[in-house]
């Protein structure tokens, strides 16, 4: 197992390098955008003298590399800096935004796993028959609809026409758990595409596994149907699905901008959107660090799960 441990260590080291690269890239890109926080703050009175004053007050007149260096030193002490526009610490932005995002992601994943795997196994079990064709064509159709379009459609039908659900989470703040009805539409939209991609991957893997000689052997030795499907075929079919699941969780945690904006949910996506609009570089960079770390950790986790599911493949970094 020492091979596995050194693999994890190498991957984490590589992950740190990747996160640093992401942060540098984000910093360079926000620098490259026209205008800065001072221009955004000056708002309706774009008086050059006023902008210069704000710039001096925010230390934006210092060279870019010095600002980056300051921020990086702070980061090493666990300090993500303060927002340029409000002066609040970046960490409070992240803490506030993470709650709703995590809630949405947790609910989505909790529903996604049984739905995606269940549909995939179901379709594979009846491969080529009516159930399979129904599941496969519906998932393909739903997958083809972009989230914003599905979101707007659901709001129009379920909220505005039928008035069953609140159209957005406006006014509920970060206390979304107290208003579960507001969560239904966003979770539905978030679920729609991942369920389709996951179930199609599971179906493909299961079709292969169910046709394999080892499943035939389990059947001929009298192992029951459900046990063959879930204990013998599914483990061999899981490896690609595990990778896809990790990417989906990553996508959910790293601020689902479109859905959060559509349903006005104050999650990380909304924080990111506002920070970019206000050229609030420290907040954007803080988010980049969090997203980078999340991506690295989730993908490493998926690789370890895959290694467990396909022990023969070994590990490579």
């Amino acid at each position, binding site marked *: 197992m020492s091979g596995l441990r050194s693999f994890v260590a190498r991957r984490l080291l590589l992950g740190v390098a990747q996160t640093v690269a992401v942060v540098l890239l984000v910093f360079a890109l926000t620098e490259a955008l026209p205008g800065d926080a001072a221009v955004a703050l000056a708002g309706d009175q774009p008086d050059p003298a006023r902008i210069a004053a704000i710039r001096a007050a925010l230390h934006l007149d210092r060279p870019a590399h010095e600002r980056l260096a300051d921020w990086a030193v702070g980061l090493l002490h666990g300090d993500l800096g303060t927002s340029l526009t409000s002066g609040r610490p970046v960490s409070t932005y992240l803490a506030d935004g993470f709650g709703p995002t995590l809630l949405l992601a947790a609910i989505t994943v909790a529903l996604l796993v049984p739905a995606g795997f269940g549909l995939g196994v179901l379709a594979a079990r009846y491969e080529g028959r009516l159930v399979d064709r129904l599941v496969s064509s519906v998932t393909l159709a739903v997958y083809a609809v972009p989230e914003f379009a599905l979101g707007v459609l659901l709001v129009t039908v379920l909220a505005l026409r039928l008035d069953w659900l609140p159209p957005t989470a406006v006014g509920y703040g970060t206390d979304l758990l107290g208003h579960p009805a507001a969560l239904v539409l966003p979770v539905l939209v978030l679920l729609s595409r991942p369920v389709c991609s996951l179930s199609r991957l599971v179906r493909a893997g299961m079709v292969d596994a169910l046709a394999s*000689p*080892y499943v035939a*052997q389990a059947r001929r*030795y*009298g*192992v029951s149907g459900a046990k063959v499907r879930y*204990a*013998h075929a599914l*483990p061999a079919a899981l490896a690609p699905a595990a990778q896809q699941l990790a990417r989906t969780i990553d996508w959910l945690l790293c601020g689902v901008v479109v859905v959060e904006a559509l349903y006005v949910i104050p999650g990380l996506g909304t924080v990111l959107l506002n920070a970019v609009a206000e050229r609030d570089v420290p907040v954007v960079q803080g988010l980049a660090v969090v997203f980078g770390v999340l991506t690295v950790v989730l993908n490493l986790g998926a690789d370890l799960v895959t290694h467990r599911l396909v*022990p023969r493949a070994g590990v490579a970094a």
Partner: protein
Amino acid sequence: MNHENDTTDPAAPLGPEGPAAFLGPGAGPVGPASRPVAAIRDLRVEIDGRAIVDGVNLEARPGKVTALVGASGSGKTTTGLALLGEYPPGARIGGEVHPAAGGLVGYIPQHPAAVLNPARRVSALLTDIARSQVCHLPRGRRRAAARERVLRALSEAQLPDGEALLRRYPHQLSGGQQQRVVLAQALLLGARVIVADEPTTGQDALIKSRIVDQLAAVAARGIAVVLLSHDLDVVRALADDVLVMRAGRVVESGPAERLWNTPRHPWTRELLTAQREFTPLGLSTGIGEPVLRIRDLIARHRDGGAHGRPTTVLRVPELALYSGTCLAVVGRSGSGKTTLARCLAGLHRDHEGEILLDGTALPRTLRTRDGAQLAAVQYVFQDSRAAFDEHRPVLHQVARTAVRLRGTDKGTARQKALTTLTRLGLPKELADRRPDQLSGGELQRAALARALLARPRVLVCDEITSGLDTINRRGLLELLAQLLRERDDLSLVLITHDLDIAALAHHIAVLDAGELVEQGTAPRVLTTPEHPFTVSLMEHTARLGMGTGR
């Protein structure tokens, strides 16, 4: 609840006798001591109106080995799987199959690894089988009882260290261990009949004789063994009854003894003679120049990722291949034969020493060899199916060699490929098919044609006959001999574990555990072997051949 059931259920009295009653009186001329535990009567399996098995009768008797013999595609496997109640998809079934009492039939496939789930530990299926047998126990004791049954089955299958083995994954076992785990599954099941499908194909003589012993031990436990094989040595060593199949029909059947001594059907006679009748190439025609010379070759493998220490797997101080001759490299599985071939072909990078082609050193890897060097050394692989792209016609793939390595234009290459394929016995209508529509023997010929199109100086054949039945094998070997006679610029390196095949060559080199232990002309090595390993290899081959394997 009352006892009305006892009197009104008409099916009840008939139940227990079931299959036994069926097989009793009507089961044909069988001695009372060995009533068959499973039988097939007049089986016909039809796909799209074409019969792949027709009119087959078979009886599996306890403690006896019944062998189904025949070339690939003769319907052996279809018949064997029918005993398990399994048929090809879309097949129409005629006749009767009386499976073993309780339907307990074990199956040992040609590749045991295929029936072991790569994602689960070895214990997975074994535990599931055992669990279903301990339902009658109170819940708390089931786990321990199942465990005990599994361990007992493993030790019965000659796997003593069961505890440690159960925690491993199939890929962490050797081929022999995998086979014994599959056998343990059948024993745990309590199978009355075990169907073994080509259990020895592609194995070397030592492993073969071990498998023979193992199957003999299974039969000695009173289990009926149905052996499907084209390996006549193994059939000779094991079988009590033999059925010879051809094109889905049984052409001859009877006690093994009678069949070997006085075969009645011409096909049986042909099958039996195909076994040994090879014409050796004889002595090399004059000492030509060595076309290929190996000096101080040391090849290594790295295990356990980039940080593992390399282990030396092959050491060849000096070996030469003379122009127009055939060199057989013989050894057991894992002796380094294939590594040597891969070094020659530039497929194994991690080696030292020199490989000289016509006096000039060959670069170590394919990537660093130029076109002429690539064309000069060609490789034919053991698994011909894996060596072809399944989506394109064979002809197209064969012709690519001439385009890539000889710079021929497409039309000419196609023409040349067609000529070569036809000469090797693959007419145009076969060559235009995709690989999945060709048999193993036909594909191996196509692979040979593909290599020949490069006009190689050295043709490396890596166990190219070990997956084939005797008749296909003889055909392919005769083809090789003919090629060698016709093309004087061609030399062969024949990698094999089979001394009978090595006997065809001009020279033989024997490898054991990565060391070149003996080399010399074929008649010399085969008649007066010097190294103890060569002697033991020959003894095992002889033991199988004599049918004294039990």
